[in-house]
Structure formats: C-alpha cells, structure tokens
C-alpha cells in the first residue's frame, strides 16, 4: 500500500464501517465485532500514514473538480496525519467502549449510533486531510449532517430542539460566513489551496484581511468560538458515546483543526499580520470566553453540561494558539488539540461507563465511586489532571507552550488568561475527581449486578495512558509538525 492508497483508505474505511454495521445489525455480537474490527483497520491505516509522513511521503488525491481551479482534493501532510492517528487510535478505544455501552444500557438503536459516529469520523478525517478551503467546507458541511442524528438520537422533544439548534448554528455559520469568506478569498488570491505560509499574505488589504479572518473563525462554528458555541452546550442531551464522538473525536476537534488550517495555510504569519486587529480581537474573545466557560462549568451539576463547558474552554485555548501568528503558537495549538482529544475522550468515556453501570450523571453523586470503580475513576482523575494542565500529562505541554509563545510576543495577559483558565478548570474537575477517589464508597452503587464490563473499563484506562503520551513524544511531534509552519523555500 502506498501513501495515496492509504489516504483513500482512511477516508473510505469509516464509511465502509458504517455500511457494514448497518448490514450486520444482528446478532449484536457480529455487529460489535464488525464495528471494532473496522475501527482497528482505520487505526492501522492511520498509523501507516503517520509513519509514511514521518518518512517524507506525500500524497494528493483529487476526487472531483466541481469548480474551475477548485478540486475536491485531499492531501497527506503532518497535521492531517497527526489528526488521523488521534481519530484512528482514540476511535478504536471509543468503538470498544461504544459496544460495551450499548450492551450495558440496552441501547435502543445502537446500529444508528455506531453508523453515524463512523460517518462523523470520516468527515472529520476529511477536514483533517482537506487540501483546500473548498474541500474543508464540504467536509464540515458533511460533518454537520452526519453528527446531527447523534444529537437527535434520543428522539425526545429536548433532543429534537437540540438537533435543530445544532443544525441551525453550524449550517448558518457555514453558509452565511464561511462560504462568502471562501468566495472572497478566491476573488483575492485566485486559489483556495492550503499552502504553508498562507495564500493571502500581501494580497489582501488590511480591511479585507481583518474581515476575512473574522468570517472564517466564526464561519467554522464547529470550533465553538462564542457566540457560535451554542451547538456544543445544546448537544449535551446526546448519549455518552455520541458526546465522546462529537466533543473529543469529530466535531469540536475538526473545528479547531479548521481554524488552525485557516490560520496557518490561508493567512500564514504575514496574512495574520495584515489582519492584526481582528486577530487580537479574537484572541481577547477566545481568552475571555475560555475563562468564562471554565467558570460556568463550575456552576453545572449535570456532568455532561460541565464537561461540555470544560471541552469548550480547552478548544478555545487551541484557537487562541492558532491566532498568535507564531510557529510556537501553532505548535501549542496542535498540542492543545492532541491534549483535548485524549483527555476529553477519556473523561467522557469514563463518565459514560459510570452512567451505564451506576446511572449517575450528577456531580453530587460521584463521591466515593472510585472505591467501587477504581480503574474508571483513576482514568477520570488522570484525564482531569490533563485538562487542568498538570505535568506530566498532555495538557501541561500545550499550556506551557501557549504561555511561552504568548509571552514571547509581549501578550503577557494571554498567559495570565491561560493560567486563570487552568485554575478554574482545576476548580471544576479537581475536587470532583478527588472526592470520587477518596470519599467513602456509596452503598448499592451499581444498577447492574455485574458492574462495569471489560469493554467499558479498558478503553478508559488506555485513554488515560494516552494522556501521558506527550511526555515522551512532545519533541518528536514538534519535528514532525515543523513543515506546517515552515514555508517551502
């Protein structure tokens, strides 16, 4: 298999996974086996692509040319390969967890849930590997449509309302802001391709550049920059596996990657310099909203709501890093996306496990659960520590680079905001994790007589291990990603 075939395979495999799950809906054992095997295959291909990219392989696949000079094309580059590895690797853990969750909760429509989660993964990979703005626009639109059934999965009135809000925010932003920004970019630069160093630098006048940056950042509503964050908080009504998929693997990370690609490959350092005013304004907005989200999370008693705000704070940190117009800022953003995906996936899978076997979703019901579910709550605690930014977990390196890069350009207040958000994150996750581990075990904790199955616990434990990965790989990742912020000679 060469890199081009691998690129095609990684995009097609999740679609095939969805089709296979639909075809093998019964018996449940076959369904789960097919779902996990396909996830395993995706993870394998993702690892292959990562390895190929590390060895300098390049691939460019054009699927169609729907407009003159604009292809529906995907390219293998380091950022996409990193995302694919995360989506593939964490997706495998998530597939195992979903199978366990569906069995533990007697999920009514597991096939639909699995199929749309797989399709969402395909679309998120499409965003990650998109070779130009048009392809990213298409992939984001498809991601919205694929994730919409996940929000509406429960089928009740609340889910219907949340689904409509989800669709309205993401589609309206995409059509109303991203599309015109894309046309405008095309009118200015004559191309929509992603290029290291950007395509707009020196071509757009300051007013156009500022307006374009604002339109792109708000147009990629999946990144949840306020006021486009309402889809994220509304979608908390979805079941836990769907939340894990949307917050940790597909929609939110795809939004962050979208903003990252626009900052690095459309604007570049020079283009962001032209859009200095908008960039600073957006950094202020993202920084303030990051602290506000962490603070609001503290007031939420429903764990899904608390985690939604917590993930929002983390994603805004990634956006903030991307807008700093510095290689160090871009690296911080890439690390933050990695940390968000690992930590959020672990936290949400742990919460899902707890909800499935104890029925508890309120923060006040967590104390002492660590005594009866030590592995799950240990994973929860490690992921919380990573979200906070405690060394040596993934989040720490991202926060460190964010603080260092913002300080290096004199934006000390950004470093202060990052630190404040870390403290507030500790406030809403730390005590909860500590009391879950240290308090006395609650009587009759389980609603299931046999407790949590291996399928529910193992992915959480492995996810927690993944949050430690950056301790070893941070330096290698920096070298691997360096072509992203290094324009070709």
């Amino acid at each position, binding site marked *: 298999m060469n890199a081009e075939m691998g690129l095609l395979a990684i995009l097609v495999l999740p679609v095939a996974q969805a089709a296979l799950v639909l075809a093998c809906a019964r018996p449940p054992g076959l369904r789960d086996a097919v779902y996990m095997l396909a996830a395993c295959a995706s993870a394998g291909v993702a690892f292959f692509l990562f390895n190929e990219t590390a060895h300098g392989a390049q691939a460019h696949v054009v699927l169609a*040319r*729907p407009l003159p000079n604009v292809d529906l094309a995907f390219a293998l580059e380091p950022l996409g390969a990193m995302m694919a590895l995360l989506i593939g690797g964490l997706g495998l853990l998530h597939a195992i967890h979903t199978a366990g969750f569906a069995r533990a909760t007697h999920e009514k429509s597991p096939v639909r849930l699995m199929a749309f989660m797989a399709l969402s993964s395909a679309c998120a990979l499409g965003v990650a590997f998109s070779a130009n703005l048009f392809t990213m626009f298409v992939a984001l639109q498809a991601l919205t449509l694929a994730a919409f*059934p996940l929000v509406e999965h429960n089928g009740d009135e609340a889910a219907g309302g949340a689904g409509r809000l989800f669709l309205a925010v993401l*589609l309206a932003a995409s*059509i109303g802001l991203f599309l*015109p920004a894309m046309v405008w970019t095309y009118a200015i630069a004559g191309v929509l391709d992603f290029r290291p160093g950007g395509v707009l630098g020196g071509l757009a006048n300051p007013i156009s550049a500022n307006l374009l940056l604002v339109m792109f950042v708000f147009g990629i509503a999946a990144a949840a920059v306020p006021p486009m964050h309402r889809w994220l908080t509304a979608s908390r009504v979805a079941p836990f596996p769907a939340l894990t998929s949307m917050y940790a693997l597909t929609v939110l990370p795809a939004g962050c990657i979208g903003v990252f690609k626009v900052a690095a490959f459309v604007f570049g350092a020079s283009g962001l310099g032209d859009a200095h005013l908008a960039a600073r304004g957006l950094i202020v907005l993202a920084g303030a909203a990051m602290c506000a989200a962490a603070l609001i999370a503290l007031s939420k008693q429903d764990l899904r709501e608390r985690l939604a705000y917590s993930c929002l704070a983390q994603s805004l940190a990634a956006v903030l890093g991307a807008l700093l117009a510095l290689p160090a800022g871009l690296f911080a953003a890439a690390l933050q996306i990695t940390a968000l995906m690992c930590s959020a996936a672990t936290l949400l899978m742990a919460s899902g496990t707890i909800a499935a076997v104890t029925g508890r979703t309120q923060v006040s019901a967590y104390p002492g659960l660590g005594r009866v579910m030590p592995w799950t709550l240990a994973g929860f605690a490690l992921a919380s520590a990573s979200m906070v930014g405690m060394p040596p977990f993934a989040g720490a390196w991202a926060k460190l680079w964010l603080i260092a890069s913002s300080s290096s350009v004199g934006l000390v207040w950004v470093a202060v905001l990052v630190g404040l958000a870390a403290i507030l994150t500790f406030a809403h996750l730390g005590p909860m994790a500590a009391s879950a581990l240290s308090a006395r075990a609650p009587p009759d904790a389980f609603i299931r007589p046999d407790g949590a199955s291996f399928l529910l616990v193992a992915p959480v434990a492995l996810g927690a291990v993944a949050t430690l990965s950056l301790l070893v790989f941070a330096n290698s990742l920096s070298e691997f990603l360096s072509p992203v912020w290094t324009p070709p000679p």
Partner: protein
Amino acid sequence: MTASLIEIARAHAPLLLLTTPLLAAALILLAPISRLSWAIGVAAMSGNVFLAMDAATRHLLAGPWGGDGVSPLAFDGLGLAGAAIIACTGALAVIAAGAVMRQFEPRERPLALALSLCVCGGWQGALVAQDLLGVFLASETAWLASVALVSLSSDRGALNGAMRMISAGAASAALFLLGAALLMRGTGVVRMSDLPLAQIAAPMSSAVGAALIVVSLAVKAALAPFHGWLAAALGRTSAFAAIMLASVGVVGALAVTARFAAYAIPAPSLGESVTSVLTALGVASVGIGSLQAIGAANVRRLAAYAGVAQGGGVLLALGLGSPAGFAAALLQMAALAAAGIAVLGGVAASGCKLSVDGLDGLGRRAPLSGAAMLVGALSLMGAPLTLGFLGRWRAIEAAVGVDLWWSAGMIIAASLAGAIYAGRLIERLYFRRAATPTPIQHDPWRVVIFPVLFGSVLALALGLEPSVLLRAAQAASLQIAGEAP
C-alpha cells in the same frame, strides 16, 4: 438515408422543437388507447431531447458560433441552453406520466398528456422565436395549456388555482403586449437580436416597454409579488400537472426572461431599466419566497415557494448584466428544474400525504423516493457537490466580479433560508417517525421513480463534474452578447 434525415432535422431543429410536441399532442388525442398516447409522448419528447442536445453540443460546445441568422425561428446561446433544459425536464416529466396519469379520469388522460406536450412545445417555441410577437404567441400557448392541465385534476380545489392562473395570465398578456408595443414604437425593431444596436428614438417609452415585458414574464415565472397563483395551483392539482408546472412552466418562463434580458441589457437606454426591474423582482422573490417556504405546511406549496426563492436567485444573477451572471442564471435554472423533478416527483412516487407531516419517516418507508427528495432538498439548499451549489457559487462569484456585494449577500441569504426549509424536509424524511402508519408507498414499483431518480442523479453528477455544463453555460452567455467564445 438516416444520415440525410438527421441533417434535415438538424437544419430545421428550431422549427422541429416547436412543432414536434404540438404534432404529437394532436396525434395523442387521436390515439385509441392511453398506453399508445404515452408512447407517442415519450417518443416526441425523446426526439426533442435529441435535437436540443445535438444542437447544444454542436453550437455551444464545439467552438465559435455566431447564431442561426435571420430566420423567424432560430437558436441563440441562451435560447438553445434554455430549450435543452426544457426538453430534458419535459421528457422526464412525460416518462413519469406513465404512472401518475392514473390520477386522471381515463378519458382525460390523453388530453392531459397532449396539454403537457403543448406546454413543452410552447416554451421551446418562445425560446427559439426571434421576434417579440413570436415569443408572445408561443408563451401564451404554453401558458393556456398549463392552465388547462391544472384544471384537469379531479380535485375541485384545483379549479381555484386554474382561475388564478387565468387572471394572472390575462394581466401578463396585457403587460407583454403593451410593453412590446412601446418597445417597438421606441426602437423601431421587432427582432430581439436587433435591440442591442437599435437607434432608440423614444428612450423613456422603450425603457418602460422593456420593463413591462420583464414584469409580464415574471408573472408567468411566478416571481414575487406575482407568485400567488403558483402555490394555489400546485397545492391542489394533480401530481403530473404539479411537476410540469414547477419544472417546465416556471423554468421555461425564467429562460425566456433571461433571453429577453440578454438582448435588452446591452441596448442603450434599456439596460438600466431592465436590470433595475430584474434586481427588484429578484430581491422580492428571494425574501418573500424564502419566508413563505419556511412557513409552508404543504409539501407542494413549500416546493412552490422554494421555486419562487430560487427564481429570485436567477433574476439576481441576470440583474448583474454580465456574461458570468447569465451563465450563473442558466446553472440555477438547471438546478431548479432538477430539484423540482426530484422533490415533486418523489412526493408523487411515494404517494404520501401532501401535508409536511406526511413526510415523517418517508425515507424509511419509501427509500427511493426519499433519496430523490433528499438530493432535491440538498440542491435547493445549495449543499456542496450539488447542482444548486454550483449555481449559487457562480452567481456569488459573478456578483463579486462586478462589485455588487449586496447581491452576493442576497444569494447567500437565499442559501441560508434554503438550509432552513430544505433542512426541514430532510429532518422530516429521515429523523421523524410517522405519528400514524399510512398505507402508502408503492415506491419501487412505479415507473415514475426512474425519471425522478435520474433527475436527482443528474443534480449530483453535474455538481460533481460540471465542466461540460460550465462550458455550455459560458458559451451560451457569451454568444448572445455577440462575443462568440
């Protein structure tokens, strides 16, 4: 022998496009059985498709072409492209008629089919007629046939729609004649192709005349605020008449408007008034049509209002007055025709209730119809990789090209509204369950599903690989402006 026959047909293609459907209509009325009538109709429309596509291939795709000369019936760029759209859409509708004709009384079936051919022939005639009188006669033929087709439904409510059409048609005819008279008096020319170089003696009356002609055609294209008849007609008439009216009637009138505008806009003293009227009607149609589509509770009414909004987008593109704008308008017309076939054909093929809640869960109960309607809805909302997106993109690009940013904004607003009303259709189709099981859905077994699916596949395929369509649209828009590519 065959080759010489084809050559003769090619030489007289404009005449044949008009007369073949009309002659076939006469034959259908004489045919003893319904199936034979249908076969005649299908054969006539297939011939029309061949003639139109052949001419389009030779004239628009093969290279420079300066038009067909001074014959009263002749091809020009936009006319030919519009005729090709009408021929394809009409052929699909007539093929679909094989199944949906059962909604008519047996004795009315040949009449309905004959009238539908008159609608196609009439609009095609208006697209090849060179003088204003010819355009008037042909479009009135199409219009009166449409009225009769709508009134044939067994539902008495359809008569209300037909009556509204008669009223609107009478006003439209009066406006056209008045406009044509003023224009001829002011310019001294009767052939549209002479307008750009005409010595205009009375600029004011000529401008008013041109504007009146545009308004007259806008009435027939159901553009706001003259669109009241369309929802009334579509809401209660037969499925076949609804498909013909939305996909052939409205698109035909839009194509004739585009053609007239392409001749009038380059004319001194006329261009400003024509672009102003087009833009005003476009803005009104996008706004009013979108709002009404969002609030519609009947699928056919929703499709009607969506058509008004999409037609508004076509007029906004025409109002730009540039070849890029005309090309974008052609693409939007093709998208509207395909979406009309897909959505209304899907409703007809599934046999579901016409209220919007009748669509609940239809995607599961009638998967083929659901898929066709899904593609139609996606194209209406301008989702990427559909024909609708292509049309919108080119229109926005054309607007940005002439620095009319507000026009681009209106087209984007139309897309946003499209996301709401088409998104509602998709949600109903796939994410709702029917409150009460409905005994319908003979979906896979009906002839009607094949043209409907073909229409939706076309909307997708041309969205994915539009190079031929883009070339044809560009050549058509350049040719009529006297700039052969």
